[in-house]
């Protein structure tokens, strides 16, 4: 079990570093969704299933969707002015 926890933690850390350092904003949004999903697995390993469900639904799905909508809207405005 502890090997699995270390594996998930390393994926989460590398994903966070990649999210912060990458130049492409869309790639950063998608990798942030993966980081959030991995944190949901960590919540499950900490014996907190209710927090894991909430994090997978809100932190991973709805937040990523909001970011993607905002990204699309901000890119569409490029040709004005």
């Amino acid at each position, binding site marked *: 079990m502890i090997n699995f926890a270390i594996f998930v933690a390393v994926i989460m850390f590398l994903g*966070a*570093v990649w999210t912060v350092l990458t130049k492409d904003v869309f790639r950063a949004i998608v990798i*942030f969704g993966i980081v959030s999903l991995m944190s949901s697995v*960590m919540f499950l390993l*900490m*014996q907190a299933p209710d927090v894991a469900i909430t994090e997978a639904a809100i932190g991973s799905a709805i*937040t990523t969707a*909001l970011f993607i909508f905002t990204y699309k809207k*901000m890119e569409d405005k490029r040709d004005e002015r």
Partner: protein
Amino acid sequence: MTKVFILSSLSLVFVGLYGVLTRKNIVKILIALNIIETGINMLLVAFGYIEGGLTPILQSDLSIANLDKMVDPVPQALVLTSIVIGLGTTAFALALAIRYKNTHNSNLITATDEEG
């Protein structure tokens, strides 16, 4: 186990803090803010974890005997509230970001904002 949880959440907090302090794109700053928030939530739940703990749900009469082996449910309740508050902050900040793009015609945020 507890060390793995606390170290991973602290690493998320510091990576996100680096992102908030150094990035210039608004969406990247808000993503970094969300990474800090995930780290702080994991830190709070990890504070309530005990080695080999059980899920704090009373399933049958037998689970009354295991009350002292269960993890602490109070930080989990706090974190549930905190996740929803974070969603509100993110949605509001993204709405402001769209208006920022419309008025400034740029999605970079800088310290010396040229007025005009």
